[in-house]
């Protein structure tokens, strides 16, 4: 018996084919993982199975849910199945709760309006749903009073209250750190045990591994590989799948440590930082030499970015001091941002912006072209505006811009957390190359402890209460949990 099957789903935008015919089946007890990068069509496929594709897109094929056969293009027919047959866990669940309604009623309303329970019974059922997820006290809280993890549980309870046997989770770990990712995987597996069917759409190899079941790898709208998840990940057949797995920091070799030479470029002594009246970093000491990579990691909100800003001199320390090499020009300290689009002026072409920087720093003619070639960027990109360039390319352009100022210290603040794994590996590779070949000192912030472990010569692990600094061998990153 299959809970859900999709046959020959195709999606077109005008003449462009976004998704080649894809067929899949979901059986009870066996989760299905759809793995792919941004633009692979994985979310479109999920939307086609839920009837939520935008009207502008043409969709073909059929979807069978339980006993119902539906044509994928008949979007209205899916509406009646929501909550009753398919439960949808949206991306970023904390945005999926009504900010003006308390958590409990958001679960209870599904019991009352979808399952037609009387008001009192619906309340009690919602209460026990939340209690089962360890949220007895959250019933009367507003969403903004919940942590991200709690909001996620409330959203799961609300999505499943209608009693649907199939759960579809679209990028459930987007923007989460490693510890929370494990949490989500566990919750999804519980949902699977109770409901029967589970479809997880993700770009996250670790999540795919934890969910198990069957796997479909999508790339540019085409199925690259299918099979049992464990098997595909252990022994990938397609070249793309192999590249994807190779891009996972877990498989990276650890960096060969650079021996400190000469005077440090930046140094921090007993640094204590606070932002908006909240103390973030307490008593951190470190010294960073030319050619070294300092990895900074820790849960979100622990002060990783503030530490980097303090090293740059953008955030004055509350106590302690930051020392920079005395021969360091003010512009020899540069930064990369998490969202490169926001780091460029919106309305100017990239060529204009880079030209201004080259002019200001009296860069010799041809320097931009040389750097473009070195960072493997097409010169045509310079004619575009920041928003019209892909994230990976734009982050490399941001790196190029920083290099025009001939920096000796670079603070890279989560430079790859919004990028796909293969692009991430590429950018991190460039950073390592800059440290090795140009002798740049780099502070790299990431929420991914594995990435930091593989990339850094020196690690600073921040947590709410403690912080420790040392080599990758010394700092135990397994404790780096939320």
């Amino acid at each position, binding site marked *: 018996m299959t809970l859900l099957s999709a046959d020959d789903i195709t999606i077109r935008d005008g003449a462009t084919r976004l998704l080649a015919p894809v067929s899949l089946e979901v059986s009870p007890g066996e989760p299905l993982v759809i793995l792919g990068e941004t633009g692979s069509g994985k979310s479109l496929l999920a939307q086609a199975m839920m009837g939520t594709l935008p009207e502008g897109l043409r969709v073909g094929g059929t979807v069978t849910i339980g006993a119902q056969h539906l044509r994928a293009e008949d979007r209205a027919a899916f509406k009646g199945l929501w909550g009753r047959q398919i439960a949808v866990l949206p991306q970023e669940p904390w945005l999926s709760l009504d900010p003006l309604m308390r958590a409990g009623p958001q679960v209870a309303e599904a019991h009352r309006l979808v399952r037609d329970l009387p008001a009192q019974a619906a309340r009690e059922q919602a209460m026990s749903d939340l209690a089962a997820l360890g949220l007895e006290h959250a019933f009367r809280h507003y969403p903004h009073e919940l942590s991200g993890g709690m909001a996620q549980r409330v959203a799961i309870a609300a999505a499943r209250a209608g009693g649907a046997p199939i759960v579809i989770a679209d990028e459930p770990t987007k923007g989460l750190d490693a510890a929370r990712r494990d949490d989500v995987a566990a919750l999804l597996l519980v949902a699977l045990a109770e409901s029967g069917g589970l479809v997880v759409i993700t770009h996250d190899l670790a999540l795919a591994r934890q969910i198990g079941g069957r796997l479909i790898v999508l790339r540019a709208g085409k199925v690259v590989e299918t099979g049992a998840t464990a098997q595909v990940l252990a022994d990938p057949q397609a070249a793309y799948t192999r590249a994807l797995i190779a891009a996972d920091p877990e498989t990276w070799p650890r960096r060969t440590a650079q021996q400190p030479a000469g005077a440090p470029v930046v140094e921090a002594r007993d640094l204590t930082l606070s932002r908006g009246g909240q103390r973030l970093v307490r008593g951190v000491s470190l010294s960073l030499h030319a050619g070294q990579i300092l990895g900074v990691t820790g849960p979100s909100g622990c002060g990783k970015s503030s530490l980097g800003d303090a090293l740059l001199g*953008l955030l004055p320390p509350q106590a302690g001091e930051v020392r920079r090499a005395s021969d360091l020009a003010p*512009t020899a300290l540069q930064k990369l941002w998490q969202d490169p689009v*926001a780091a*460029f*002026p*919106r*309305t*100017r072409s990239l060529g204009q912006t880079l030209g201004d920087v080259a002019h*200001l720093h009296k860069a010799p003619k041809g320097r931009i072209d040389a750097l473009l070639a070195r960072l493997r960027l097409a010169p045509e990109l310079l004619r575009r505006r920041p928003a019209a360039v892909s994230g990976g390319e734009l982050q490399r352009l941001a790196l190029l811009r920083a290099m025009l100022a001939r920096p000796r210290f670079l603070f890279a603040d989560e430079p790859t957390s919004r990028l796909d794994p293969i692009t991430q590996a590429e950018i991190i590779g460039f950073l390592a190359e800059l440290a090795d070949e140009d002798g740049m000192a780099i502070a790299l912030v990431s929420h991914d402890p594995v990435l930091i472990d593989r990339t850094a010569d020196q690690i600073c692990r921040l947590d709410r209460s403690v912080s420790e600094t040392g080599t990758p061998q010394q700092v135990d990153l397994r404790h780096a949990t939320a």
Partner: protein
Amino acid sequence: MTTTTLSRPWPSGRIIGAAILTLIAAFAILGPVIVPGSPFAQSLMKSLAGPEPAAPFGYDHLGRSLYHRLVHALRLSPLIALAAVATAGAAGLVLGTLAALRGGWVERVLVVLADALLALPGLLMVLIVLAIMPGTALGFWAGLSLVLWVEFFRLTRATARATLAGPAVQAARLLGFGWPYVFRTHLWPEVAPLMLTAAAFGTATAIMGIAALGFVSVGMRAPTPELGLMMVELLPYWREAPMALLTPVLATFALLLGLTLLAGGHRT
């Protein structure tokens, strides 16, 4: 700012608005060239008479050519309004940028002042300034500027705060660019489109204000040709000469509609 181009073509509403305004401006500038005449010359014989070649829109109750009165009315209040908007826009841009850049008590004082002005009906402030200033046109300019700068200030300050705190400006500063460059390449391109919208609304508000006060006889004085004043003068003759009254009414409506359409978005 010479290098910034609008990424998308203007929506059709804006184009229609700009076209209406161009037509009105052409009429106001070229009107007396096409049909020479005076807005003040009276001829009681022709009181409320219909159109003729020397007066294409007919005559008012005092036998003055409505065509020429309208031409002058369409010069007077738009000019005052534009002058007030230019003053208010410049003041708002400078003070808003200053507040966002300096912060501290400079910002606090300006914000409290702007908030207080926001609480007072604009027409009331204009009325008080009119009573203080010598000369009605000067009084309107000063009063309207005083009322209108608040909107430009708030827009500029909000945009500047967001922009200045963003990564793009941080990057420019780290790279060694000075504030003039930051203003030119980061701030102005963000503020300019909002300023255009606010300026169109501001001009409409100013023209409405001048007409409204003229209509209740506390604005421009007779015999000045002014839209509101023309309406109240012609109101008693509605039955005899409906077209005479409709002339300033339609002109006002077209002017304000053009400005509203040009503004595109709406105030928030």
